[in-house]
């Protein structure tokens, strides 16, 4: 880790402030976990409802640390060749064709097959060198000189086999490419894994990570988040809209609005030049917050009451 990073992770408060500067407002729990992850050099497994800012956290980390963000989106069927590396087959083929003459020259004058093979053997691995290697996100993250921020997004969607493979990478930060040998991380990447809990991750993976659960923020924190993410919204409207969203989360909805939807709504209200909440305005823009028809219907019944409460 470079000197600059040493500075940025000096204290827990410094981490909190730094991330706020990068546009991410941390709760104390998040700041503590980020601080620990740096000092223990462990990945963070981030869980929480959708839209609560799991991916944002990794992006903010990249901005804060001034390191590139490398993202690996997981899905069913993701395998090593898409996550780690692949050979550039086309290039290999092309080069063997182009270099055909050279190869002929090379084996010219050899006596018999055995000698020709021995001659070619001297240049054995030329087509399996790093020039012909197409690195994928995991390898890229390991090769990054100054270290990278690696985001393994929605790791719960990947197969158990891939999870096992990931274990190897995350515990030693090295991978082996059979043709090249072991590749060690130049500088350990700062790793985030996010999970939406569609399936339980294995014990082994959990053990190698710090666990961070991000719940929906409380009212004070959410106001702060809106302030940082949508600074154009005036203070009064900000308080009202956050109060409204907080009430909405209390309702029995199919999908409660997340933080990203609060921010979207704040921006929509700004575009509409609103300076405070009123029932008609809320009714017209409710689809920004709620994505199911049934939810909108359920919320509309109590809309006036909730708006009044939020405005007060």
């Amino acid at each position, binding site marked *: 880790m470079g000197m600059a990073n040493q500075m940025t992770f000096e204290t*827990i408060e410094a981490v909190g402030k730094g991330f706020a500067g990068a546009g991410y407002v941390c709760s*104390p*729990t998040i700041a*503590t*976990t980020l*601080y*620990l992850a740096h*000092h*223990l050099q*462990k990945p*963070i497994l981030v*869980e929480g409802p959708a839209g609560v800012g799991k991916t944002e956290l990794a992006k903010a980390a990249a901005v804060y640390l001034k390191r590139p963000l490398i993202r690996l989106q997981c899905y069913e069927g993701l395998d090593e060749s898409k996550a780690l590396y692949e*050979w550039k*087959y*086309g290039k*290999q*083929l092309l080069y*063997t064709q182009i270099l055909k003459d050279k190869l002929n020259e090379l084996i010219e004058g050899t006596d018999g097959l055995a000698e020709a093979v021995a001659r070619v053997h001297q240049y054995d691995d030329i*087509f399996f060198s790093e020039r012909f290697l197409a690195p994928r996100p995991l390898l890229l993250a390991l090769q990054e000189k100054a270290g990278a921020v690696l985001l393994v997004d929605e790791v719960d969607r990947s197969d*158990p*086999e891939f999870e096992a493979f990931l274990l190897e990478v995350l515990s030693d930060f090295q991978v082996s490419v059979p043709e090249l040998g072991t590749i060690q991380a130049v500088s350990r990447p700062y790793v985030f894994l996010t999970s939406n809990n569609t399936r*339980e991750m294995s*014990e082994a993976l*959990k*053990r190698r990570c*710090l*666990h*961070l*659960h991000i719940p929906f923020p409380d009212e004070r924190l959410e106001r702060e988040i809106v302030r940082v993410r949508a600074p154009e919204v005036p203070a009064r409207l900000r308080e009202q809209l956050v109060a409204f969203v907080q009430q909405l989360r209390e309702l029995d909805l199919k999908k409660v609005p997340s933080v990203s939807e609060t921010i979207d709504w704040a921006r929509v209200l700004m575009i509409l030049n609103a300076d405070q909440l009123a029932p008609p305005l809320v009714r017209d823009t409710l689809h920004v917050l709620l994505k199911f028809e049934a939810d909108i219907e359920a919320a509309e019944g109590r809309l006036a009451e909730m708006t009044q409460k939020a405005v007060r």
Partner: protein
Amino acid sequence: MERALCDFIVALRGSGVRISMAETLDALRTAALVGFKERHILRDALSAALAKSRAEEAIFTDCFDRFFAADGLAATGTADPSGPDSEQAQTDSSLGQMILAGDATGLSMAMRQAADRAKITGIAFFTQKSLYIQRILRGMGVEGLDRNILRLSRENGEASQETADALKAGREFLFERVRDFVERQYALYAASAQEAILERYLREMRLSNLEQRDHERMHRIIQRMVKTLNDTRSRRKKAAKRGLLDVKRTLRENVAYQGLIFEPRWKARKIDRPDMMVLCDVSRSVEAVSRFMLLFLYSLNEEIARIRSFIFCSNLAEVSHIFDQCGLDEALGRLQRGTGLGVDLGRTDYGQALRNFKEAALDRIGRRTTVLILGDARNNYGNPEPGILSLIHKRARRVIWLNPESPPFWGAGDSEMRRYLPFCTLARECSSVNHLERVVAFLVRTG
């Protein structure tokens, strides 16, 4: 402090959080990093390092608060602020000196050390509490203090009397603190013992005797069991995955070898997901057990995607939708009472139930379907229709019958079990979780 952390981890493990050696080391490093000054930071940090899910986080917080609760000595009011008195030099017991000096930290330290020597972490039963209290007090040197008090109170002179009174009050206070301390330690360390014992007990005991409040725990055991089934399945899957040649991938990946098929690539074989139909008897004769059976059914519904559930008594009705709509308690209640489900809770009629099942679902049974029947086969001397079961047996991959009665009773009285037996791939007695575990193991083994 390391010692305290290790004790804390023991307590956490006892409460059901699994913590490995590597995590223990992490916790020690974490504590060294953030320090012990700020309680909430330490808690957040340790939680990140040790708790691995939301449930564990809740347990962790609870445990942390109990473990690092102040031991009350800081608030000691025993200090006699009369300053260095010539009379007080008479207390030659170090404990007495600490009491008189109001040295809360010293007392707290002495108590913890004595507790360590007394091996408080070994406490397992509430009957041991007084034993540990005495051990700790003795370890702190309370005997010397007692002798001291006795000697002082025999002496004449106001100063000695005063000191003796102060020491007595201090001793009383100390006793209470130690008692509280042992009380807390018991809650921390014995919870583990209790839980383990209770769990073993529940697994062994007859399900009919299960009480309402234990269902929650039972459910967890079953979930763990069903998870074992899943894990085993995924390992098997990997071994048997290779299928047909994948022409497209083979060509593409072998371009590197000038199109020579050097490294063939295979298609992954399609995985057979378990396909299940469950028939559950809810008549009065199996009432107590059926509640457990339904609990099992509920867990299965959570874990297996393709499952259809039926309950029967005088007739049969499909109840698959209940599991999606209702929570555990509500679902079990509704299934047992049969309200609004179209099931008639009169005399048990296996014949009618099988006829209903034949109409409703026989044509949906394929060669991958497992049919699971939970019931005692007591048919009130009606027509048992074994022919229908034979039909089911022919179509399905396997028919499993779990009977709460033990085999000697099969066929006795109105039990038709003997007549159904030829058409069951597997028939087992099942009235405790251990039985159930064996059935699951069999299912996994035979794939």
